[in-house]
């Protein structure tokens, strides 16, 4: 089974647009499980649709809880908290749950043994069945929560199970932006990592960052240049970079009003406007991708 993750480094270059359309095209030909692990801002379900079949809480993080009947208000926990997540309010240690990483230093240093760590739900996993016959799993981090990397790993693990149960040929993962903790977890374990970029200096710079992560994990790299006609010189540099680094250039998507119009309709562009220039380009990319994946 192939596991393909779509990442970008910079946000907003078209990861979800591309993922949704590629997923839609793939579902016509093979058994597919799609996954959205942009757990902070999961958007794939907004264009893929489908019916919510199942939703469960995921406990992938621990938080400190003060047992006030034992707390003497000494403040040692607050002094030692590496995240500065504990404040003394009057004679009480108050944990700001948003900033607690669950490291447990407070519970170790507390002379009264008044602090304990408890598993808390930091996210949820929603499972959608789409009308075109594939399954979509969406990881959602609770607002302001930590542990996004662990949540991403957890969601991917479930997706692999679902894929096995359904006999799917492919798991297609829409990843988070950046090159930090959640992006690292998204790339880890993937057989192929497809980078989406656009020809701007910021997108190119962050493309190089995410590529280093991909290389580290040894996934087969591919590149899609979105809004390719935005600025020709940087596009050439990006293609040159890909060729030099052994990244498969899967194709380019031109600027096309059909893309935002399809998003406004809540549909992948290839299904909303199959004849649009962006759709034709994505169909060519799809063919190249199928060849690259050897499926």
């Amino acid at each position, binding site marked *: 089974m192939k596991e393909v993750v779509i990442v*970008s480094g*910079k*946000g*907003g*270059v078209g990861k*979800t647009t591309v993922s949704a359309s590629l997923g839609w095209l793939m579902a016509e030909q093979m058994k597919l499980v799609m996954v959205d692990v*942009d*757990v*902070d*801002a999961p*958007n794939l379900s*907004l*264009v893929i649709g489908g019916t919510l079949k199942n939703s469960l809480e995921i406990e992938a993080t*621990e938080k400190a809880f003060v047992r006030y009947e034992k707390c003497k208000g000494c403040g040692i926990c607050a002094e*030692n908290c*590496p995240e*500065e997540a504990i404040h003394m309010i009057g004679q009480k240690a108050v944990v700001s749950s*948003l*900033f607690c*990483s*669950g*490291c*447990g*230093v407070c519970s*170790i*240093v507390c002379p009264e043994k008044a602090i304990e*760590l408890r598993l808390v739900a930091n996210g949820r996993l929603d499972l959608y069945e789409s009308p075109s016959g594939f399954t979509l799993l969406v990881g959602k*981090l609770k*607002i*302001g*929560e*930590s542990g*996004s*990397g662990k949540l991403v790993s957890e969601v991917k693990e479930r997706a692999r199970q679902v894929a096995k149960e359904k006999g799917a040929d492919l798991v297609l993962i829409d990843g*988070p*932006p*950046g*090159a*930090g*903790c*959640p*992006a*690292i977890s998204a790339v880890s374990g993937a057989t192929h990592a497809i980078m989406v970029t656009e020809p*701007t*200096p*910021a997108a190119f*710079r*962050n493309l190089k*960052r995410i590529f*280093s*992560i991909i290389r*580290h994990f040894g996934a087969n790299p591919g590149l899609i240049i979105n809004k390719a006609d*935005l*600025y020709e*010189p*940087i596009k050439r540099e990006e293609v040159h970079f890909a060729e030099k680094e052994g990244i498969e250039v899967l194709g380019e998507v031109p600027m096309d009003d059909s893309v*935002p119009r399809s*998003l*406004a309709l*809540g549909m992948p562009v290839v299904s909303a406007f199959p004849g649009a220039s962006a759709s034709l380009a994505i169909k060519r990319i799809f063919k190249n991708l199928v060849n690259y994946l050897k499926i």
Partner: protein
Amino acid sequence: MDISRGPKIIAVTGGKGGTGKTTVAVNLAFHFSQIGKKVLLADCDVDAPSVATLLGAEMRNGKEVRQFLPVFDESRCIRCGECSKACRMHAILQVPDKIPLLFPDLCLGCGACSIVCPTNAILDGKKVVGWIYETEAYGVDLLIGELKLNERESEAIIREVKERAMDLSKERRYDLIIIDTAPGAHCDVALSLKDSDFVLAVTEPTPFGIHDLDLILELANLLKLKHAVVVNRADLPGNHRLLKEICKKHSSRLIEEIPVDDNVVQSHVRSRPLMLDFPNSPAARAISRLAKEVWEELSL
């Protein structure tokens, strides 16, 4: 503005990636500096920093940000396994009669292991997790955090950027500190927004933009921060009614709309402020109106 009260802090965020956070942050900073304010622009999008790229500034001679990483002193370690038990991230494995085995990828750098070690056998390996760059462009002081590749502890860099910003401010007496955040609504963004006087949520009217705006405004409310919404590429097809409903739901207000404007891309590829090269372009005019609104908001 009364300088003795310290700088005002504006955080520019947005939820969805690529909505124009950095464009707005950079051009607001440039605009305020042009009208005589002392401005520091801090890039807290440490795993994809773009402020320097947009302003053509170089990220050189960065100061290393280090974090605790356990190193085991073999001569002192009694193989008791207390460190392994204390580590809630399961980054330390105690094999019987062996020196503990560390999985550095899982280590948060909290130091719990060294606190519980009965023989002081755990030393600080001071791992480099990223860098902070201090530079200047077009009259704006820049402070840029960058996470080292393959490191996960972005919070350590953000915390250091914010501390350095406050230290610099004591010396240089800024009127304004503008913070550019990562996309999303996770802990890094929460940490970046924390303690700011005003949060600008930059979004677009698309379903993705609106969906993620809902999340970021909820976070701003959780943190009890004052906020307003900037709609970028306002003429993209979308749902303006729903966008207004989301603003209302979180008691936010739509403060400015920036139209689609090709000059923005031009300014990006030139790596110069839009407001400098295309001051009369529709987007630049919207950002100067925004600056006026923000200043009024801060003076209240």
